[in-house]
């Protein structure tokens, strides 16, 4: 257990020591306090932002660590959302099976990500072609689902609804004393906060574990990684599936949050968004988690107060921030905070001298 907790800090994640974890605890406590004190609309609105964080974290994981820039996050977002919509509509809220629907949706996402990932990585597709292949998949799904209007496109009781999508499916529920309690409003918010925190910590551990080492090795030099005994294809595959499943999680949570999912969540403009969030925030997990929420809030605020200048201003802000912080706004900020605690311990270890022939020790 202790060795696992040690992995919360490491080379593959920014942030260590008391200042950082103090700050993160404050953030967490602040988020909880906000959920208690803020008005119900503000809380629900924040839930909406949190829904997207999983997809962004998934991309930060596979792109930041493993170097795979997938345009397909939205494809798995859509698969997750549609599966949840279809299953929960068929079973109905009274069955109490919405959680089962959510889990099965995740399984479906994992399966489809595994199939696509197998085709891509074991089929020898790499680099920019991975991006284009995943883009083609998400656009194909969007085009297909857009034309599924009418009763002939139905799975059980759920009509796919074409461009209009599926709406009015049940929200997530938990069975409670023979009743099904809806997870909406504040309970959804607290659930999301805790779930984001767990996902974040789990990804940190994974990033600093051997899996993370392997992914970084593959990103930096596939040739060298292979020569060190890393199975490059398998590692890319694993990173892709983990990231895609998180996108699917966002999708089903989105469907549960708004009781609505439509094909345009898989379109070209939607597909670019996760990449924007991660690139502008920084590909570090902490930077992406914080940055995604901030960027979503910013673009919403602009939409409300910016009138016709909203999107122009958003574009300008993006351009300026990438020019100013090419490594990502929040990643740059985090590195600043990190450097307050002095140089990293990995560099401060005294160099030991030994009279032994080191090659004998080593080999």
């Amino acid at each position: 257990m202790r060795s696992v907790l040690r992995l919360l800090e490491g080379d593959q994640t920014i942030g260590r020591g008391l200042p950082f974890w103090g700050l993160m605890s404050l953030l967490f406590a602040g988020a909880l306090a906000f959920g208690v004190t803020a008005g119900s609309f503000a809380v629900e609105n924040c839930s909406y932002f949190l829904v997207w964080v999983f997809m962004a974290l998934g991309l930060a994981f596979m792109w930041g660590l493993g170097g795979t820039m997938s345009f397909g996050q939205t494809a798995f977002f859509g698969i997750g959302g549609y599966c949840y919509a279809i299953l929960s509509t068929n079973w109905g809220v009274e069955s109490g099976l919405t959680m089962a629907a959510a889990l099965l949706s995740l399984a479906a996402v994992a399966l489809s990500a595994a199939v696509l990932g197998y085709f891509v990585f074991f089929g020898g597709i790499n680099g920019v072609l991975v991006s284009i292949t995943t883009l083609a998949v998400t656009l194909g799904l969007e085009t297909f689902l857009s034309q599924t209007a009418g009763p002939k496109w139905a799975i059980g009781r759920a009509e796919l609804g074409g461009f209009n999508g599926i709406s009015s499916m049940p929200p997530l529920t938990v069975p409670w004393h023979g009743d099904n309690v809806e997870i909406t409003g504040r309970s959804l918010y607290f659930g999301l906060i805790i779930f984001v925190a767990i996902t974040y910590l789990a990804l940190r551990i994974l990033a600093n574990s051997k899996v993370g080492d392997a992914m970084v090795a593959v990103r930096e030099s596939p040739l060298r990684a292979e020569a060190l005994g890393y199975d490059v294809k398998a590692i890319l595959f694993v990173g892709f599936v983990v990231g895609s499943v998180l996108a699917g999680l966002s999708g089903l949570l989105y469907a549960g949050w708004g009781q609505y999912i439509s094909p345009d969540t898989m379109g070209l403009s939607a597909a670019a968004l996760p990449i924007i969030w991660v690139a502008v925030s920084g590909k570090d997990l902490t930077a992406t988690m914080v940055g995604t929420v901030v960027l979503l809030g910013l673009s919403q605020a602009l939409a409300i107060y910016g009138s016709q200048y909203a999107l122009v201003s958003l574009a300008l802000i993006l351009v300026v921030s990438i020019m100013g912080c090419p490594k990502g706004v929040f990643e740059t900020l985090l590195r600043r905070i990190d450097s307050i605690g002095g140089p990293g311990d990995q560099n401060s270890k005294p160099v030991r001298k030994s009279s032994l022939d080191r090659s004998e020790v080593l080999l």
Partner: protein
Amino acid sequence: MTLLRARQLTKRFGGHAAVDRLDLSIEAGEIRCLIGPNGAGKSTALALLAGSLSPSAGAIYFDGSEISNVAAHDRAKRGISIKFQLPSVFPELSVRQNLKIALSRRYLGSELDDRIDETLDLVELSDQRGKLARVLSHGQKQWLEFGLAISLKPRLLLLDEPTAGMTPEETERTGELVLRLNRSGVTVVAVEHDMQFVRQIARTVSVLHLGTVFSEGRLNDVLANEDVKKIYFGEAPRHG
């Protein structure tokens, strides 16, 4: 005991055979240098042995079993390690992280830290541990890659021009490092142009020409061979 054997190994690119029916046999504990003019197929042969290229025909045996179709990463696990011609390190990571990624396959926790420090000392990069690999000098990159290649405790180390771009002094120290590794039980196959270096480390050399072994033996004997001289001047007779 024969550690590595290549039989009729062939690699074609389009119509051109870069390696052509190559036969090679390396004893355990040996240091073998592959020499020959540019385009003789030396690097291709090494890549075939390491598994980063797959052969068009022929077979490779390692430690008694055929590995012709074993993936590169599995060969690495069986104990074949390679140092490439162009230094292949993890450029955006620190020197220490480079080694950590290599060593974390075997070690954990404080032992991992110890092994990293030892390897840093061994390749004389302790002072550079915090630097990004891409800012190292060429020679330092070469040594870092050495560190990566030996971190797996290989039984066979393949070196592709390990001293390219090094000063004479660096070359000499590299030779000492190779000899030390060899003393600790590592078999070495090196492709090299620097005859001083070859003389320093190798007992046996194989001359490659047109993708196959042209001549084999002690360095001085081989270099004295008139036909070998000719191929270095580009007028070699085709062998039968």
